[in-house]
């Protein structure tokens, strides 16, 4: 098992080096996609399946798609050498003083990086050995979580119980981070043309050419992906997964639907209005569910919703609805990222 871990870790370092040394942008993005694929195997090896699922759905899936579209919008896909320098920079760079400083700067940056790596390696060598039971982090805090998580939160999955019940405000803050990111991207990338003719031409341009093979397979796969996203979302407190990865899978399903059937068909059931309504309702429900005690003045630790017995789906009190809210917010945000990057409008 050790040499398997070693091969994967060497693969990671190789990927990072190839990404930083490759000239073409598309090459580095494609290699970065395989980097996060392998990262997910390492989370599986470190016995934390929650991270593996979230990294797979959110990290590998959505980030690479966003990188691809940015490259398209920047036009770096067509040209071979996207970062050509215009004449002023060439002239400036050719001056001897600047060239000399450039060499010095490169040397200083590499030595600084090497110094950081060396200092941290010193730190790593004094860390407790990998995976031994009596390292200081394995103290009574984690034991408390593990022992009490079923009685207090009812969630079989201790990590989800921790995230959505002990630390519910932190996850609420995180969903707000996603909401704010989507709002900022909306402000930045939305090209709302006032006159409708230009908008019509614009929509026409982005309507994907209808491809029967993709459409027939999307008819089979789109419901399967949505069903699987809902499955991951709903038993987030039983098996690993939960709001974030379930939502990201549903977002990926919506992206598949837009690519296969085009914007007009998707707008029938998911346009800008529904996006705003769904995210705002989900976040406000989450906020009310977890902060009504501010107004009622009681300390808010126990919610009066029965926890149910630990195994089945409708158990663990408030975690299931919160999971669904977080999943909806994540799904709408991922889809909004895709459409705003690609077309500038829902």
């Amino acid at each position, binding site marked *: *098992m050790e*040499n*398997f871990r070693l*091969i*994967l870790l*060497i*693969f990671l370092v*190789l*990927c990072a080096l*190839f990404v930083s040394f*490759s000239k073409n942008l*598309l*090459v580095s993005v*494609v*290699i970065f*996609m*395989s980097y996060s*694929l*392998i990262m*997910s*195997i390492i989370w*599986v*090896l470190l*016995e934390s*399946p929650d991270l*593996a*699922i979230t990294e*797979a*759905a959110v990290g*590998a*899936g959505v980030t*690479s*798609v966003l990188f*691809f*579209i940015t*490259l*398209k919008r920047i*036009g770096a*896909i*067509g040209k071979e050498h996207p970062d050509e320098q215009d004449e002023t920079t060439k002239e400036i760079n050719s001056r001897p003083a600047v060239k000399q400083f450039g060499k010095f700067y490169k040397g200083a940056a590499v030595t600084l990086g090497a110094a950081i790596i060396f200092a941290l390696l010193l730190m790593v060598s004094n860390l407790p050995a990998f995976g031994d039971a009596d390292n200081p982090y394995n103290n009574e805090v984690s034991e408390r979580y593990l022992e009490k998580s079923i009685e207090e939160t009812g969630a079989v999955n201790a990590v989800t119980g921790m995230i959505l019940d002990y630390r519910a405000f932190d996850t609420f803050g995180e969903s707000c981070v996603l909401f704010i990111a989507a709002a900022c991207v909306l402000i930045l990338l939305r090209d709302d043309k006032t006159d409708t003719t230009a908008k019509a031409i614009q929509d026409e341009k982005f309507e*994907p050419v209808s491809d029967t093979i*993709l459409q027939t397979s999307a008819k089979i*796969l789109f419901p399967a*992906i949505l069903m*699987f996203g809902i499955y*991951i979302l709903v038993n987030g407190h039983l*098996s*690993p*997964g939960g709001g974030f*990865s379930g939502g990201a*899978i549903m977002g*990926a*399903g919506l*992206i*598949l639907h837009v*690519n*296969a059937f085009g914007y007009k068909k998707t707008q029938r059931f998911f346009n800008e209005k529904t996006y705003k309504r769904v995210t705002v309702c989900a976040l406000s429900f989450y906020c009310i569910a977890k902060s009504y005690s501010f107004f009622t003045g009681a300390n808010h630790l126990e919610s009066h919703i029965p926890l149910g017995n630990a195994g089945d789906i409708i158990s663990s009190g408030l975690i299931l609805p919160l999971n669904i809210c977080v999943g909806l917010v994540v799904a709408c945000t991922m889809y909004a990222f895709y459409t705003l990057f690609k077309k500038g409008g829902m």
Partner: protein
Amino acid sequence: MGNMTNAYETLAVVLICCIAVLIVACLIRSVLGPRVTDRIVAVNSIGTMTIVIIAILSVLLEEAYLLDVCLIYAMISFVAVIVLTKIYTGVYREEEKEESQKEEK
């Protein structure tokens, strides 16, 4: 089943190491590949091999929910291939349109 566990374990570890070596070979293929399509094909097969590794690991570590990770990977690599091919052909078509307009002028 008891006495066979170490036999199964060695089998699984040997297989995973071979596939890991194949993944590194695929990475080299994706770096060398002259055209963009080589890179997409290589990363696509890296995705499939990741799925096989995670499936073997899920049976080896006796944790059933790791198979969800495999299914997610199948979906994600499918959606990513669709998006990338649509974008690349879109960029190419726009370039051709610009060239044809330039010729008309």
